[in-house]
């Protein structure tokens, strides 16, 4: 039987260790220095993360304000030679890749988590679950090169034409099929789903596991099937976990940089066709910084996009984490 320890984290109830009072050490100069060091000392390394976050904001803001581009920033036109630095296009592109990836990874993640907690025997889940979590560890360049070399022909020759042919009546999937050699939205969404999947699966799985056994058993004792207990008891109980899985998965997909840069093709336009070329904020920032060397206008244009990206991922991550503080968090320390 698994003895789960009582909620040990974030209890915040344990009092911080008291620093030695000046009278408890010898009232010498060295003693007083030590006392002050003990009071202030802990703050120094603890403030490093805060300093870095502040530093990020300061750096991006100072770069964004370097050149006077504010007038063109809030638009849907990105054309550096014409001094137009609108990030709107890339925001749409980021959403077009991240939202479908989120939906897909939530659907599959929900299914995997349910299967793992409710339907599969222990001897299978013991190795299947870590296997899915391993998906999170693969570096995004590796995903990118695999997809670029191995998958783009499949998307170009099979997947895209099939969808275009069979689902062409859906707005955005019809019209003339743009030829992109397999790069673009479909393959990017696929890879982002794979990258967000371990996060959603892990969080939903953990939140389902934290449903008290009594609730499960009382539901089953009343004659409900496992599915009915899930639907009426366990999932509503873990709705916060599911919501946070969605938020954190979205944050991952929205901020993903390198794999998307390799697979999206890229064009600073809002695509008229699902198979056409577009670009995301993170991918643009990554692939165009080289072009911004020694060019303060270009750097400003990229930095203000960075602020938008940082702000959105910040909000999403803070909301997402708020919802999981009650879970056994060491699992997700790595997320």
């Amino acid at each position: 039987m698994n003895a789960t320890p009582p909620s040990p984290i974030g209890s915040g109830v344990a009092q911080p260790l008291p620093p030695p009072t000046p009278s408890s050490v010898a009232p010498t100069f060295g003693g007083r220095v030590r006392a002050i060091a003990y009071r202030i000392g802990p703050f120094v390394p603890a403030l490093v993360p805060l300093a870095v976050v502040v530093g990020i904001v300061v750096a991006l803001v100072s770069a964004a304000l370097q050149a006077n581009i504010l007038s063109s920033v809030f638009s849907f036109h990105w054309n550096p030679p014409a001094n137009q630095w609108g990030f709107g296009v890339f925001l749409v592109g980021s959403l077009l890749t991240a939202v479908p990836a989120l939906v897909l990874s939530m659907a599959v993640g929900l299914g995997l988590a349910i299967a793992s907690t409710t339907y599969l025997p222990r001897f299978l889940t013991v190795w299947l679950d870590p296997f899915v979590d391993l998906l999170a560890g693969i570096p995004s360049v590796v995903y990118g090169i695999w997809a670029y070399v191995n998958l783009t022909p499949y998307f170009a020759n099979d997947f895209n034409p099939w969808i275009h042919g069979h689902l062409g009546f859906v707005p955005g999937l019809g019209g003339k099929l743009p030829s992109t050699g397999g790069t673009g939205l479909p393959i990017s969404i696929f890879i982002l789903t794979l990258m967000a999947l371990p996060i959603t699966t892990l969080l939903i799985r953990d939140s389902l596991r934290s449903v008290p056994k009594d609730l499960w058993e009382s539901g089953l004792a009343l004659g409900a099937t496992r599915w009915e207990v899930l639907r009426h008891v366990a999932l509503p109980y873990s709705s916060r976990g599911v919501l946070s899985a969605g938020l954190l998965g979205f944050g991952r997909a929205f901020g993903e940089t390198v794999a998307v840069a390799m697979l999206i093709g890229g064009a600073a336009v809002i695509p008229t066709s699902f198979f056409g070329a577009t670009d995301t904020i993170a991918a643009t920032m990554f692939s165009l910084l080289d072009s911004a060397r020694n060019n303060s206008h270009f750097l400003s244009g990229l930095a203000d996009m960075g602020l938008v990206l940082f702000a959105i991922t910040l909000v999403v991550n803070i909301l997402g984490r708020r919802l999981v503080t009650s879970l056994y968090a060491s699992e997700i320390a790595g997320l």
Partner: protein
Amino acid sequence: MAAATVRSASPALPPDDVLTRSSGRLRWRTGFDSAIGWLLPLLFVVALYPILELVYYISVQAVPTLSWTVLTSTNPVAVDALGVPIITTFEIMALATAIASGLGALGGIATAEFLPDQAAEVVRASANMLAGAPSVVVGYFGYIAFVLYFGWGLSYIAGVVTLSFFMLPYVFRTVDLAFTSIPRPIREAALGSGAGPSQYVLRVGTPIAFPQILNGIFLAMAIGVGETAPLVLTTTHGVLVPQSIYSPVSFLTALIWSDFDAGKVSGLQVVAFQCAFLLMIVVIALNIVVRVISARYRKRLEGLYQ
């Protein structure tokens, strides 16, 4: 009187043969449940097939071309000589891990043990914010702050420091978690026996939390070794092992990024696959280590409560 009312109010029991047959509705419910029980696990196949395909494809592309010569050659003008990138990646990781672990561990301990509650919450939130920041944003911070403002240029040191800031929050959070999850009875026993702050941290807390701390370091390494953006944006390409802190550097993820679409003539795409293969192995190994340690650690923590 009451018994008569109850007996007359309750419906007559159905005959025996009805009780042994399942009603249609029940059959549908249990059938649906079984169907789901077979369908959902199939999703595992859907989810895991791509990663198997990935590992297989990269191995097939890389392994036949790898040899001891390729892995150790430090010839600066050869097309396929991975000695320099491997050693440089090693060095970058060593330095960045040292910085991230040092700052992260100290910060985590300070937050868990010494900071007042509100300050601790603010610091924890900022660590979460930093962990959630996209790698390209941290890369921009490194570029603007270190390459431009500090004037280090596109250099080894700029890359290492930027990467260490990217890895920092993972160590920070794990150490923080490790120390806050030390069972209260043990903490109070130590303090009650007269342990001072440093004695508690060094002699009681660290030995208990040590596996978790090590785990955090390995986790940060697993994440750091696979990162491209923080390093690519702050360094420029080099062909020798770093000779000074301002040197150009070459490392595995950058080679993949620059060569993934290279043509046949240059023979560089093979190099990209070789680097991808090496990275994959390192990352998978580190992830397995992390998982093993955390599983053993959880058992140990449970043991502490008995």
